[in-house]
């Protein structure tokens, strides 16, 4: 009897849709890491500079890069590395927020591929405010808040453009997002080119803005900088987590979220029910844009990041990486916190590969790319899980 009970318990666990999403995400990650490993092996075998030991080290770093503590003697050493973890959390902050940006839009039936553009507009606004408002007359804390809100607002406005075009003219948001991305890239380049925020003082630096700490504006550490001493982490990660929780509550507990999701799932039925579908589509994109803007603000207001403003030829990867973060999390705002951290861990692993071995950091990009592909297949993986379950239950029935 005991065994039977245990089995039904297991079946219930696997039957949940949430569980299946988690499992399919884990499978995607696993296969992605495997592909990364294979590439490490192939690259190693084909280059003279990398020995068998080098290959092994590369593989170790892909899986354990976060816990790398450098080299001890000739060998890689691993252990609890507060600097790595702190840096991981710092880099996870914007990823969580752009991930939320994409996830919230997805939940309301919109594909926000415009996160890079919204991120850039948020960047420009927050850096501009943080460097221009004199901290001699306005307290630095207030300037920080102004810059943070300015970043959100700029991102939100930039998100509103594709939203409005979709709502009123029914133009596909993917197309308008791509266009607004490049408009943002050029606009931002032009703006900084004409501004006096360019860093001209440090020799050899071309195309960077000043750090916001030049004006004394910098995200408070909230104790995290003490815990993870020597790393870049600050209170931004806490703000990102709070925002994720707020998004979760908003989407699943409030009438506002109910309306947004209804518009996303069936615009016609929402309209039939008296919900203002146009308003809600615009609001979805405004929220998504604001989230991307906040990602930018928290990254650039840290005080030790310098923005390379001559960005007209490239869009920020952190904007696009919001898509795999959201996909891995199956668009659940709470899960986005974890998938954002995971992406950031890969990022750290990439840096460790670069500094400690003959490999470069692009291997982690391949892992991310593989995971993105597989995330798109998560439906298929779910189906496979279903089929395996069905077969198992059939076998059990025959016994």
């Amino acid at each position, binding site marked *: 009897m005991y065994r039977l009970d245990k089995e039904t318990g297991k079946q219930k666990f696997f039957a949940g849709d949430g569980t299946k999403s988690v499992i399919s995400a884990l499978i995607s990650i696993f296969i992605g890491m495997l592909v990364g490993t294979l590439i490490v092996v192939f690259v190693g075998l084909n280059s003279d500079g990398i020995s068998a030991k080098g290959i092994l080290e590369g593989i170790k770093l892909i899986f354990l890069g976060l816990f790398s503590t450098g080299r001890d003697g000739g060998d890689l050493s691993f252990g609890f590395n507060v600097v790595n973890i702190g840096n991981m959390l710092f880099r996870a902050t914007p990823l969580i927020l752009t991930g939320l940006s994409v996830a919230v839009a997805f939940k309301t039936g919109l594909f926000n591929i415009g996160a890079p553009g919204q991120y850039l507009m948020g960047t420009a606004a927050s850096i501009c405010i943080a460097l221009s408002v004199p901290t001699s007359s306005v307290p630095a804390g207030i300037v920080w808040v102004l810059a943070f809100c300015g970043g959100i607002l700029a991102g939100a406005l930039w998100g509103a453009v594709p939203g409005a075009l979709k709502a009123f003219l029914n133009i596909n948001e993917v197309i308008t997002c791509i266009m607004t991305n490049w408009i943002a890239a050029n606009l931002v380049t032009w703006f900084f080119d004409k501004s006096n925020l360019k860093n001209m003082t440090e020799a050899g630096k071309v195309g960077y803005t000043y750090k916001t700490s030049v004006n004394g504006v910098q995200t408070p550490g909230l104790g995290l900088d003490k815990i993870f001493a020597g790393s870049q982490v600050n209170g931004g990660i806490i703000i990102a987590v709070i925002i994720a929780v707020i998004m979760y509550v908003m989407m699943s507990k409030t009438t506002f979220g109910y309306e947004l999701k*209804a518009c996303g799932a069936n615009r*016609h039925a929402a309209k039939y029910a008296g919900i203002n579908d146009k308003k809600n589509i615009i609001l979805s994109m405004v929220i998504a844009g604001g989230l991307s803007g906040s990602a930018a603000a928290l990254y650039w207001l840290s005080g030790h990041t310098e923005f390379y403003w001559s960005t007209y030829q490239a869009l920020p990867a952190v904007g696009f990486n919001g898509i795999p973060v959201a996909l891995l999390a199956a668009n659940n705002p709470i899960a986005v916190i974890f998938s954002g951290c995971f992406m950031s861990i890969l990022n750290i692993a990439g840096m460790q590969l670069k500094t400690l071995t003959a490999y470069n950091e692009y291997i982690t990009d391949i892992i991310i790319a593989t995971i993105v592909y597989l995330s798109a297949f998560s439906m298929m993986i779910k189906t496979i899980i279903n089929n395996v379950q069905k077969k198992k239950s059939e076998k059990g029935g025959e016994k």
Partner: protein
Amino acid sequence: MPEYVIEMNHIRKEFPGIVANDDITLKLRKGEIHALLGENGAGKSTLMSVLFGLYQPEKGTIKKDGQEVKIENPNDATELGIGMVHQHFKLIDVFTVLDNIILGAETTKFGFLKKKEAREKVAELSERYGLKVNLNAKVEDITVGMQQRVEILKMLYRDNDILIFDEPTAVLTPQEIDELMEIMRGFAREGKSILFITHKLNEIMAVSDRVTVLHKGKCIGTVNTKDVTKSELSTMMVGRPVQLEITKGESRPTDVVLSVRDLTVPSKVHKNDAVRSVSFDVRGGEIVCIAGIDGNGQTELVQGLTGLEKMSRGSITLCGSDISGASIRKRSVTGMSHIPEDRHKHGLVLDYTLEQNLVLQKYKDPQFQRGGFIRFDEVRKYADKLIEEYDVRSGQGAVTTARSMSGGNQQKAIIARELDRDAPLIIAVQPTRGLDVGAIEHIHRQLVHERDRGKAVLLVSLELDEVMSLADRILVMYEGEIVGELDPKKTDAQELGLYMSGAKREEKGEQ
């Protein structure tokens, strides 16, 4: 010569979680019209799809002329002479009638089309069976009735002698239905065998020789049509006695609830107005029925009334207040319930759960939210109450995804939601479309009950039976105008049909 042209023996077809066909045996004689009767979800379409090669059965055999055959895809079926007219026509709108008929079976020489032979053959067939079509017209320009004749010609052109008709009369006027029946009898006389899927008892009695009844995937039996009555058939089909004719008392109209004057709604497809200067009143305690063939402006009329589309002219007064320019929510709150025509497009958010759908308009009521936060316990309580009261059946109760529910229960959920709002005006558009006799009876009774409670009911229906049995007054729409107001007690289906097809109209006067 074997007795049966087609034998389907002990067919079993399963889908995940459901047995769609359970040990069904169906035998078709040469030259007979054999009706297949059953509720929605009884397994009729599945059985026909098995015969047409779209599904493979888990168990059972199919015999053609006594020989066992394996039908693995529709091409096999065509080779065996089995043809099917689907409920939703499979025609290419921008092709001509002739091109549609020969598509897939073109006569060619050195890879070039030889349409002349094809044209002669089709013309000959059309002559012989009285299937009037214009071979050079594009499908998009011809009537639905003619499109159906094209589908029939497609089967004949392929020399099919076993013809499956899947609910062929749903889109036709009474006159066209009569014509179709005559055509079917002609086929039977020629020795062709016909399988006729339907849930309309009148048609079965009129045209079929034998009837096989399915109920919940099981075969209830095969009977000779002349040995049974309509009520016996419906009892077999539903599994319990059904009241076919709705009994309703005299209507007692009270005050005007809805008053429409000169309502004009532009069309989305063409430049003309879809609804042209329509005026009428609906009073409390009466069912006013808008009758007409599909596509004569009924949809746009309702969209104009409910606010889904903007009207270009006219005025609408509901419960004494002018709602001509009001938002959808304003209209709804003023006192309008709307059972929409398309339950998947407008009626439900299919990815939402049943309970979320049941509060689709009410989620903002203080009962269901506090400070913008949804009161999930109250929503659940309310949903459970409606599910109980209106007998909405689903896999997991209130948390079932609407998408996974059967069509009948989806409709029940919409009706529960709309009637429970207790609005003085109920606009019901084809509320029984695609539903089975049992569910139809239930919905009809509810509408009459609402009328007797003093509600004004505006019913838009394409089903003449429904119009005749429910309406207290009938307004016939033709090409966007109301061409006649009829009293169902003083008219019959024939006269109604004449108005619907535009052959007859009242001179417009003050009503």
